[in-house]
């Protein structure tokens, strides 16, 4: 199973694999379609060839070919029925004596002549003439009493296609135990013994419309007259070096339909084959295997375009491929006389168009899951690398300190100078190595960051919206209370509308005030559950002790105060939607319980012995990064994947600048209506101020600002002053990112901590942002860590959490903090008294700000108090 999962993942990630598989499937399906409707399929396959045959310039007719046929004069002379074979014998002898290169006689010799037609004597004459002129090509008869070794028996079979049109002739066929060549081919081989013709079936290149009239014809009557008159020169001009074919039998009912629309006999088709061979105007066709390969290639290529490019461009590219193939097909036919398959590729392409579209929709969800997993993996790797970076930084700092110590030792003891120099050199080398490793780790981190950004870009990409659709979506949003004209948000709404109809759970991500609950209600209202309850629960507001009771309900007497049965939110939302807001703040132990309900759809009320089953669609929301939560361990991965059936990331108001005017107008009107006043207007200056203001509370803050302005305004026109916009209390992350603030030396620890938090506690980046030396930043953080340890009474986790501010950085800070603390303990370990230890600490941590030595001293004292044995030891 893991292998299958791995293969499936690989398959979903590889467009080429999907294209190949879909191309193969389409080819097989197209072949099956061909088997189901062979006539239609065949007619379509030959359309190009048939059209070409009808409209091209006629091919030349061989001057080495002569057909002797019946006409009215001949039938007047020899009768309208079958002719006496003695007459045929004379014609054959004449052709042979006049230098014919090869002679063919399309005459059935299955039965002997009837007595009225000369009987055995005429048969004997024909046999003698054949022996004299032999070999002579005859149509094959199963058991002819007249067959002789001077006869080359050939077949007049044709291979009509499934659409009953005859385009091909089998070059040889097994009749009985013998391999019998085609009539035309047998004559060709007699005329040109050195020529070779390979293959089992030949596509006939018809001259003109394929009837006999397009080939050089002489009538039997004319030939007879020349024979009777002994016009030897005339006979020689007709026959010398010619392939002569006698067609003495009455014209059979035309049985074979040609692509040109003519109906001709099998002999006529074979004679056109002969003409084609004599004039070397052969036409080839790809065999079934090659046709299949071409189809597979084409279908795979088009599928690749459809899957890889996406959107309308993919159809454009795929259409271009089809067009190119069409041009190739026409060119091959006109220039190389090569007939490429048409029906099979076209059918396969049609299937590919449909299949690729369905496939894209079917696997979109799975691809998203894979992308999420990739993001998760990359984030985990980033965390690991970050930890490694911290360790290396610490190591580098420790080595730096050792180096400093070594240098001091060098200054004190010249006798040990040489050893120390070596140590210094070694340490320098180690430092360089560690710095190189650190740089490599940093580079790796950057790469991973770029990869993560790429993956995010993929997940966030959405198709463009048309104007009409935008308008429609805007109206629908407004009906649901969502005021926006932002394309991104409308696109998101469009996806939400589609996803709402499914039963999948939804996860809404976005900062506070971005409208998560509004969208949750929209999901509910747009879903089939719209007539059922919508229950919104703020998970952060629920007391941990009452979590189960609130969500699952309780039975009377299950705990103190449970005086009656109570239904929980899940039951209240039965058949409806349960909106779990602030899901990121849910405790780990509660996450497990919630997961169980989501998985099994059943739960036990508190104190109940029987389970309760509910049908609830869960829509969760949070402003926290749950992916990071998973990677850092504060959010269960299984719950995360259970919740994220549909994920919608709501943009902050800052990213929806175009909505600010619209929102302002909406709220001003609403508030004015509420107050029974006319809606005030905003001056351009006020509107600009609104747009420039940093709305950390997003729409909620904007709304509050405008409501306040309306309430306090006395004029119908609101100015910037009326808005009472407060300058930002702290530098926002974006501003800080844009303009790194260079703090002076006495900068407060809070500012340094902010900068560290901003840079993810990356010493190098923070040092660069502050314009300081890295060791200075390290010393400042070290001091902050010691202070935090003192403040939290030695609780490292709490201290780290306090410093990190963001849970995602806690682990990083914790690692650093533990390292600093361990270093401190290692430093004071050899000393017996606090004073000695502090003296050494002052020397060791000489760059540590003085204000932090108090914390160091406290920690040292705590250590000595907690471990008196160490003092003695």
């Amino acid at each position, binding site marked *: 199973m893991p292998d299958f999962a791995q293969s499936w993942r690989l398959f979903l990630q590889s467009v080429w694999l999907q294209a190949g598989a879909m191309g193969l499937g389409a080819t097989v399906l197209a072949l099956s379609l061909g088997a189901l409707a062979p006539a239609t399929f065949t007619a379509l396959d030959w359309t190009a060839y048939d059209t070409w045959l009808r409209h091209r310039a006629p091919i030349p007719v061989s001057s080495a070919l002569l057909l002797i046929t019946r006409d009215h004069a001949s039938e007047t002379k020899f009768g309208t029925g079958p002719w006496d074979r003695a007459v045929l014998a004379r014609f054959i002898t004449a052709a042979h004596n006049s230098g014919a290169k090869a002679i063919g006689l399309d005459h059935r010799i299955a039965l002997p002549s*009837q007595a009225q037609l*000369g*009987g055995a004597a005429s048969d*004997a004459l024909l046999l003698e003439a054949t*022996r004299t002129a032999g070999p002579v090509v005859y149509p094959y008869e199963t058991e002819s009493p007249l067959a002789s070794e001077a006869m080359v028996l050939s077949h007049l079979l044709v291979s009509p296609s499934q659409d009953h049109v005859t385009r091909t002739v089998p070059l040889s066929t097994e009749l009985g135990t013998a391999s019998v060549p085609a009539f035309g081919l047998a004559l060709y081989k007699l005329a040109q013994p050195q020529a070779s013709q390979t293959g089992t079936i030949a596509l006939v290149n018809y001259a003109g419309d394929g009837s006999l009239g397009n080939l050089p014809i002489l009538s039997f009557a004319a030939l007879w007259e020349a024979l009777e008159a*002994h016009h030897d020169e005339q006979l020689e001009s007709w026959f010398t070096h010619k392939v002569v074919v006698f067609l003495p039998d009455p014209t059979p009912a035309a049985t074979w339909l040609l692509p040109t629309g003519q109906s001709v006999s099998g002999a006529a088709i074979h004679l056109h084959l002969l003409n084609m061979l004599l004039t070397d105007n052969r036409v080839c066709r790809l065999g079934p295997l090659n046709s299949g390969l071409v189809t597979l290639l084409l279908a795979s290529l088009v599928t690749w375009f459809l899957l890889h490019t996406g959107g309308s461009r993919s159809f454009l590219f795929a259409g271009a491929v089809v067009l190119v193939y069409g041009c190739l097909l026409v060119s091959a036919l006109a220039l190389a006389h090569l007939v490429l398959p048409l029906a099979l590729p076209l059918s396969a392409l049609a299937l590919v168009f449909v299949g690729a579209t369905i496939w894209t929709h079917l696997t979109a969800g799975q691809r998203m899951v894979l992308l999420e997993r990739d993001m998760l993996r990359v984030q985990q790797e980033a965390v690991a690398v970050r930890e490694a970076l911290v360790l290396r930084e610490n190591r580098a700092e420790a080595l730096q300190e050792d180096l400093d110590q070594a240098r001091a030792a060098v200054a004190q003891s010249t006798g040990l100078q040489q050893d120390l120099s070596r140590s210094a050199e070694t340490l320098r080398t180690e430092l360089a190595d560690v710095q190189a490793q650190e740089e490599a780790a940093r580079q790796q981190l950057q790469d991973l960051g770029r990869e993560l950004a790429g993956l995010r870009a993929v997940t966030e990409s959405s198709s463009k919206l048309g104007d009409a659709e935008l308008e429609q979506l805007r109206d629908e949003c407004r009906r649901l209370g969502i005021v926006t004209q932002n394309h991104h948000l409308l696109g998101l709404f469009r996806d939400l509308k589609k996803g709402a109809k499914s039963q999948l759970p939804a996860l809404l991500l976005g900062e506070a005030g971005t409208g998560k609950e509004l969208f949750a209600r929209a999901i509910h209202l747009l879903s089939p559950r719209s007539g059922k309850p919508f229950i919104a629960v703020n998970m952060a507001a629920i007391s941990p002790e009452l979590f189960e009771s609130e969500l699952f309900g309780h039975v009377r007497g299950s705990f103190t105060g449970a005086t009656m049965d109570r239904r929980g939110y899940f039951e209240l939302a039965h058949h409806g939607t349960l909106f779990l807001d602030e899901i990121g703040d849910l405790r780990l132990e509660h996450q497990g319980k919630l997961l169980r309900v989501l998985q099994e759809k059943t739960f036990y009320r508190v104190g109940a012995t029987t389970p309760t089953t509910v049908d609830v669609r869960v829509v969760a929301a949070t402003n926290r990064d749950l992916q990071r939560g998973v990677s850092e361990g504060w959010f269960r991965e299984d719950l995360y994947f259970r919740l994220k059936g549909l994920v919608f990331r709501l943009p902050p108001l800052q990213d929806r600048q175009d909505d600010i005017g619209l929102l302002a107008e909406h709220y001003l009107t609403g508030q004015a209506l509420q107050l029974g006043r006319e809606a005030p207007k905003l001056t351009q200056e006020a509107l600009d101020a609104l747009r420039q203001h940093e709305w950390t509370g997003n729409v909620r803050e904007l709304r509050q600002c405008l409501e306040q302005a309306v309430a306090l305004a006395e004029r119908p026109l609101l100015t910037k002053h009326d808005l009472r916009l407060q300058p930002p209390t702290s530098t926002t992350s974006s501003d800080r990112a844009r303009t790194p603030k260079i703090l002076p030396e006495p900068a407060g620890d809070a500012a340094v901590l902010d900068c560290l938090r901003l840079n993810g506690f990356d010493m190098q980046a923070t040092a660069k942002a502050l314009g300081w030396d890295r060791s200075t930043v390290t010393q400042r953080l070290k001091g902050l860590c010691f202070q935090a340890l003192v403040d939290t009474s030695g609780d490292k986790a709490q201290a780290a959490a306090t410093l990190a501010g963001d849970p995602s950085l806690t682990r990083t800070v914790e690692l650093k903090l533990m390292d600093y603390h361990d270093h401190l303990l290692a430093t004071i370990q050899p000393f017996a008294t606090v004073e000695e230890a502090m003296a050494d600490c002052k020397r060791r941590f000489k760059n540590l700000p003085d204000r932090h030595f108090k914390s160091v001293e406290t920690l040292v004292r705590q250590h000595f108090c907690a471990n008196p044995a160490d003092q003695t030891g």
Partner: protein
Amino acid sequence: MKRRLVLAILFLASCAWLHSIDSSLAETPDNQTPPASTEPPSAASPLHLPELQPHDRDDAVSLLGELRGIVSLSPQSPDDRLKLAEALYRIGDLDTAIDECRIAIALKPDHALAHLQLGRALMAKQDWRASVMELKEAARLNPELTQAHYNLGTAYYTTGNIKGAIQSYQQALELQPSFPDARYRLALVLKLAKRDQESAQFMEEAAANGIPQAQFFLGNAYRAGQGVTKSGTLAVYWWTNAAEFGHQPAASTLSILRRQALSPVQPEQNRLDALKAFQGYREKIWENFPDLARNGDSETLGTTLLKQNRTDHAVPVLLQECYAPSDMAQTELARLYETGWEPSLPPFDKKILACFEATAGEGFGPAKKILARIYGKGLGMKPDRQKAITAVRGLPKQDVKAVLDELSLQP
């Protein structure tokens, strides 16, 4: 009057049908004269009905009327009905003949001749399978019935049963060895069965019995060496015999061979072979006159016979030699054409002129000169200079000049 007119029309129709039926039974490949003996001689066939013998035209019509009267008087007589069927068959009323045969068979199921007659009528109707059944029944009822076996052979062959045909013809020959036509047909069928040696043997016997078709095929066999030793001389010999019987294919074959011998554009070997064959033929015909002694190459058989005043034999032999073709014979015949040989040969004999015309057309130089003289001088016809000039086309210039000079001297 009216009755007579109807009878006359009936008579003419019967003649036409008689001819076609005889042709069908004789199986002539080229509509030439039927073989001398298409049926067993009546004397040798005790079962042969006297009514089947040829009758005069009036007899046939009157006989039909008489037979109808007899049948109406005695409708239960199978023999009378059979006679009526025979008469109807001869005038070509095949359907009525078949009906009468069937009634006769119904009256007397073991009537072999009725079955035979029915089989023949069905053959004429080209109902071969039914005819085979009837003829087999006739042969079963009367194994001595030669006609039944002979016709069965033909019917068998037409239905593709070569083996059956051979057996039937052999049985017919066993019953009646002097049946050249059966011999010829057996030879043909053996030839088609690739049994060339046996075929050649029977063909030679038939040819010797004067069947021109057999002579022609025997000539072909000698030319190709099929079943016999290859011999151009014997081929020419037998073709000439057949041509003398008016067998056109044989005459055409000889004409082609003469052209081959006389044409300068033919391959040398072919030309020499043809000349050798004709020369051999000219020598072979000496064997027909064992009493004559050859006098070297200075004389031909014809000239020798002429010297001996045996004109009845000399002229036909000279014609044979002229067609052979021989300069000497041509010269002698030219002389005979002008002078004649009283009293047996008048001057300007048409046969001699036809011989000159034929051989001149085939490119024989001496014949051209002679013909030019005949046309130019108006020997036996009005002088025609243009025809004379045309006749000498293809001759060497000096020969042409000499001939024309000779002619221009004439007034």
